[in-house]
């Protein structure tokens, strides 16, 4: 892990909710982009359409340049895969590479408060680069939140 000194770490989670709540999170992301809270953003998506046997990959990016001119780009690929096993494997392989891995190591003196947060993308087993260890620099303890 590559240790990075941070002054604040926030973790938010929300699980086992209705599929429609995906829209709420996407709206929040769009709000953050348009308000300038996110100066640059990159989104990578993989989806599966069982009925049409499609695997879709999608990349969207937005940025506000030094000239304050906002731009957005996107690129999308959809592939129809007739073989059911290959359809499932293709989706799972992409999903594995795009997985966000993180673990919190709790501060023994402060239960429920992470002392170090390890974050990485993808399948760590095949990757020499294991990710980042975000380590608080001071006695400013990160807060664990749950949605």
């Amino acid at each position: 892990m590559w240790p990075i000194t941070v002054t604040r770490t926030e973790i938010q989670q929300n699980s086992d909710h209705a599929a429609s709540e995906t829209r709420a999170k996407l709206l929040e992301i769009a709000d953050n982009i348009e308000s300038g809270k996110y100066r640059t953003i990159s989104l990578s998506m993989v989806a599966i359409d069982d009925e049409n046997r499609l695997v879709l990959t999608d990349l969207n990016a937005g940025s506000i340049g030094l000239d304050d001119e906002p731009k957005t780009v996107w690129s999308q690929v959809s592939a129809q895969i007739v073989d059911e096993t290959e359809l499932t494997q293709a989706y799972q392989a992409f999903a594995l590479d795009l997985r966000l891995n993180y673990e919190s190591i709790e501060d023994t003196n402060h239960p429920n408060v992470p002392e170090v947060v390890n974050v990485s993308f993808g399948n760590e087993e095949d990757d020499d680069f294991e990710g980042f260890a975000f380590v608080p620099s001071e006695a400013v303890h990160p807060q664990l939140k749950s949605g």
Partner: protein
Amino acid sequence: MSEDEYWKVRVTHIDHSEADGEHRYLGDLRLKLMEIADKVEAGIYDELSLNYFANNQMQQTITVGQLGTTQGEYGERGSYWEEVKVHIPEEVHFTDTYRAFMEDATIWLDAYSGDDPNTVEELIVFVGDNRSEGDTTKFIKTPQKS
């Protein structure tokens, strides 16, 4: 990387579309995100995994997140998301961290045309900066034209 290292997946149809930044407003990203939400709610996307990473240079914060929808054995559907936001005071670390996440989560495309320059015969799609070889890369090939 040799072609042998790509995982070849047989496909019957492939669509590739893109838009560059020169003619697109930042607000178009909202439309694209709502299109994704529409397809999730309509059931067109049975399952979805979406990663994002964003930075705010003024505040030196980086946000890394994932959201997705799932479909259970009996068709029941659900959603999840998780997000990590950090403030990195050291400027070099801030930039390096953002770039490293961008490399890992970016989808790369390589299209090869055949005799017809407007027809994509082969399309290589993979995620990340290809630090790890082999099964992290995907090779999608359209059927040979008759």
